[in-house]
């Protein structure tokens, strides 16, 4: 199979995510976090944050929402039934707190074929309302070839 690489470089319209206090708590409980910075407004304020802090991996919430249209884009052409999440990378800037508005832009970084499999890498760049980069994510998907 020859892989279609036309979509490399394609960027999707920015997704705007409003970070909620209860969403941070819900996420923190689901991943077993007990640090009061994530759960207790007073503890967060005592540590000089405006509101509860999002755990770093909360990036999957605001970036995950943004990446879905790219994964399902017919122009990219991922065979979803044969897709595996092979790897993930995040680089973080200033922490995200409840009340932030995070704008995430997804770009198709690379599409390569190796050993009969397709390797699809997407980059997500997330900025807050002060235009600071809070997170850059690389989402690595593998699509197994149909035989």
């Amino acid at each position: 199979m020859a892989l279609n690489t036309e979509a490399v470089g394609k960027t999707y319209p920015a997704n705007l995510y409003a970070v909620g206090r209860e969403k941070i708590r819900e996420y923190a409980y689901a991943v077993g976090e007990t640090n009061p910075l994530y759960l207790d407004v007073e503890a967060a304020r005592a540590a000089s944050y405006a509101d509860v802090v999002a755990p770093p991996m909360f990036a999957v919430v605001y970036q995950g929402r943004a990446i879905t249209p790219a994964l399902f884009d017919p122009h990219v052409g991922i065979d979803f039934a044969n897709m595996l999440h092979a790897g993930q990378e995040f680089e973080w800037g200033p922490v995200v707190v409840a009340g932030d508005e995070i704008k995430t832009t997804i770009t198709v970084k690379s599409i390569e074929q190796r050993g009969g499999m397709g390797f699809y890498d997407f980059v997500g760049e997330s900025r807050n309302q002060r235009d600071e980069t809070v997170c850059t994510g690389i989402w690595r998907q593998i699509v197994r070839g149909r035989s």
Partner: protein
Amino acid sequence: MTLGPGDTIELKVTPDQFLTVRYAGASGDFNPIHIDEEFARSVGLPGRILHGLWTMAQVARAHTDAAGGPERLKRLSVQFRGMGRIGEEIVVSGTVREVEGAVAIVDSQAEQAGHRLIRNAVAEISVS
């Protein structure tokens, strides 16, 4: 924060029966292989499997707990391998490879019953 070369970090966690349902709601990833036993079996899996990004969150938590807070974790990259099972303990273990200036580089992995779910994880932690 004092993390020096050779120092180790560890975290143990056992995912309960309804964890994947809670995580699906919290994360927005409702792929049925994580929450629907029948669907998971119909596509050849032994049953519902854990979300890889939940397991990565355990790796992240091991680092932020050891480093003293969320703002210290600057970077984390992982490779996913294998399928995480419900009800079996997961062990995250890591070792500080080196400290360059104010940044510690930590190598880690997550394993369950002898199978690695995450390998070649590399983190950068601020130790200033």
